[in-house]
Structures are given as C-alpha cells and as structure tokens.
C-alpha cells in the first residue's frame, strides 16, 4: 500500500514579526514611564499661559493635592490637616538641607493640584511650603486651550 506524500504548510512569520517589532519599538519610545512623584490620578487644571517645564530644575519636591484637598504622598498616605502638611514640608526641607550637594535656593516645590480642589486647599500647601523655608514654588497645569468658565 503506497502512502501519498505529506506536505506541511508553515505560515510565514516574517511579516508578522516585522510588524510586531515596529509596534514594540513605538511603544518603547513613547512609553510615558510613571514618575513616582507625579500622581497620574490628579486632574490638572488648564492654563494656556503655562510655560514648558524647566529641564534644568535639578531639585524639585512634587506635591500632589487630590480633589478633597489632601496632600497625597502615596495611595495609603495622605496628609489632611494643616499641622500634618506643615510637618511634612518641614521634614522635606530638612532632608534637602542635609544634602551638601543641594543649594536650597535651587529647590522648587512643584504643586500639582487637582482642578476640582478648593483654592484654599492649594493655598495652604503653598503657605506651608513657605513656612517650612522653601523659596520657589510653581504650579503645574495642562497647556490646553481655554474651556470657558
């Protein structure tokens, strides 16, 4: 009994591999790796006059303020009261000032406040930063067109 010859059909993976590699390259290049200090849950307000972030700012202390006005250190650590916020700022100031490589005049406190928060809550964080000894403060905003209001 004679057997017929069997032919195997293998898909050509080269084109697929090329495509996958290109996608991989794209996502690797544009990947916006989450900076630990920048809380992505904060919905920043919009300001067309906000200027691009200074790249030469060597030392920054980013503080995130959620919509309830809490200073967010991590998911489980939030500072709600004025005393807690001031103490946190003082601790951070001490940490910076102990570092001999840091000039305190160059340290900037970056306030990332949620657009839905009360202005009073943002203000108390800025004031705490000032009371703790920080000299530079800047606010973060999304550079979009005005949305009326």
């Amino acid at each position: 009994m004679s057997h017929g010859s069997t032919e195997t059909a293998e898909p050509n993976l080269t084109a697929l591999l090329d495509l996958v590699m290109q996608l991989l390259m794209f996502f690797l290049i544009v990947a916006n790796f989450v900076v630990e200090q920048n809380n992505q849950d904060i919905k920043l307000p919009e300001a067309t006059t906000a200027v691009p972030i200074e790249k030469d700012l060597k030392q920054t202390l980013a503080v995130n303020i959620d919509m309830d006005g809490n200073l967010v250190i991590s998911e489980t650590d939030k500072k709600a009261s004025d005393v807690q916020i001031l103490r946190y700022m003082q601790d951070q100031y001490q940490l910076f000032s102990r570092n001999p490589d840091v000039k305190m005049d160059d340290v900037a406190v970056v306030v990332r406040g949620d657009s839905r928060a009360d202005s009073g809550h943002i203000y108390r964080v800025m004031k705490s930063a000032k009371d703790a000894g920080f000299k530079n403060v800047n606010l973060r905003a999304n550079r979009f067109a005005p949305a009326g209001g």
Partner: protein
Amino acid sequence: MFGKGKRSAPKEVEVDLNRVVTPMLDMTFQILFFLIMNFRLPTPEGQVDLLLPKEDEGQPLQQQEDKLDKDKKDEYRLRLEIYRNAGDDSQGTIRQMTWKLKEEQDAAPINEREPSNDKDEYNQKLSPKLYGLVVKLREYQPKEGGKQPTIKIEFDNKLRYSELLKVMDVLRKMKFTNVGVMPIPKGK
C-alpha cells in the same frame, strides 16, 4: 587503507526557523501587551511660576517675573465671589468679580460681556464673565516696557482651583505680570 571507501557526504542539518522564532514571538507579544496596557498619552504639562510671600507681606503670593510696585496707587484688588450651597455644578464657581483700588473702600462689579464680536480667538472662547474681565483690564493694561500695576486676586477658600487658574490665565495672557493671590481677608 584510505581512499578505498566511498567518502560519505556530510549530512545536511535542517534548521526549522519557524520553531526558533516562536518563543521570541511569544515573548515579544507579552512585552507588547504589557506596554499597551501601561500606555498613557503624555499630557502637555506646563508650569506657572510663583513667588512665595515675604514675611512682612502677610498672605499674598505673586509671580516671580517682576517685583511688586511699591507705589500703592497702582495696586488693585480683584475679588472673586462664588456660588455657595448651589447644590449643582455651579457650586464653587465664580458668581461675581469686583474690582477696586486697594485704598478705596467701594468695589465695582465687573459686568459680563459677550465675546462673540472679539477678533481674538482666545477671547472668543471665554465665558461672558471672563470676557467682562478682559474688557475691564484693557483700561489698565500696561504698555510695552511700561510700569506694571499690581493686581492681587482675593479668592474665597471654596473657589474651585480650576476657576482661579482661569482668571490667572486671563491676566497672564494680557501681560499682567505683577499678580498675587490671597484668600479674602476675614471679616471683609
């Protein structure tokens, strides 16, 4: 001894390339999946510089670019009053803006204006309240290289932060650089 036997040709080794590629493709797909799942569009984040208040100046915060004019005649107060207990989306938004010289007692309300006839694209998108502010500020707008008036924004603590930024945005757009913010003083 030698040469008599037929020399056998080396065996051809077949390499199945498809099998070699498969694990790599699997791994690549996993990496791709991870990257796609964690992909976030980068936001165009920018900064708004501020200078913290001096000890002797009390509360106000102002921008870094220019020092405050010491001439108090050029110091204006822009007060932002808000909707309270509205129970809807307007809660915490600007109800009315008033304007006054620091030394004056009476503050004048800033009237709403329709921006539809303005040629400026930015102004056209503003709300009537903010456009009213633009019209008001035109009277005080400094000429190029001229003296900057000082404007302090007094805000209610419950004012939504986004609303405050919108007002600051209008002021910066109109080239006012001596702008400070402070809560409405208690009892006023």
